[in-house]
């Protein structure tokens, strides 16, 4: 059961990468994550938002939509959506070290998102891309209760 939800919309400017990861991490802090779990969430969001900026809107500025949901079983679901050009070959894009970006890109974005989360889904067509990740936050003895 979803216990809390937030949405945010911002422009695909690289200056917003930090803002996006800190906002989602701040929302996720209601699940009382460890510092490592919080860092995982920041990293996932940073990779997803960078993909939108570099690949979805390569020659323009568009909007990036993030929705985050907290669930009673101490998981967070984060969806990062764009209305960009889409990914022609998702399987290839998810391969480690594959990139169509410049030399300052490593091609490791999807690999990092996948290994830092518990589940990742990518949906893409010519109208845009949605990346959804699910991250379980460990229950801690003496930790805060969500409900």
């Amino acid at each position: 059961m979803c216990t809390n939800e937030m949405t945010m919309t911002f422009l695909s400017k690289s200056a917003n990468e930090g803002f996006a990861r800190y906002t989602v991490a701040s929302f996720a802090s209601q699940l009382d994550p460890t510092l490592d779990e919080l860092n995982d969430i920041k990293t996932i969001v940073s990779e997803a938002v960078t993909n939108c900026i570099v690949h979805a809107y390569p020659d323009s500025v568009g909007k990036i939509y993030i929705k985050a949901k907290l669930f009673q079983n101490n998981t967070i679901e984060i969806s990062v959506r764009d209305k960009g050009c889409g990914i022609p070959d998702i399987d290839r894009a998810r391969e480690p070290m594959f990139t169509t970006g410049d030399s300052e890109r490593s091609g490791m974005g999807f690999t990092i998102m996948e290994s830092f989360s518990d589940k990742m889904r990518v949906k893409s067509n010519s109208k845009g891309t949605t990346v959804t990740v699910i991250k379980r936050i460990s229950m801690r003895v003496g930790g805060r209760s969500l409900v």
Partner: protein
Amino acid sequence: MRIISTKDANVLSISLEGELDHHSAKGAISQIANIIEIELPLNVTLNLKGLSFMDSSGIALVLHTWRRLNDFSAKLKIENVPTQGYKVLNAAGIPRLIPTTRLH
């Protein structure tokens, strides 16, 4: 993002401070390339102690620097990598390629 370089007889030490993401990576990569171009060192240490955040842009920065140093047979070491950054570098197998030590 702040980059500070110091050189002693044999080693050029480059310290990174702040957050390394796509927003800061391009400037950081070219700044490091410029330092290497001027100093032409034989040994370089990237000190990541001051990095409060690093995503996969850090992998690109490390590989870029490593390839440039390989061009003239110089050696690279990465030191004091914070836990989060180490996890990112490890996902790309960087510690198997370049000597890398964690921050303790």
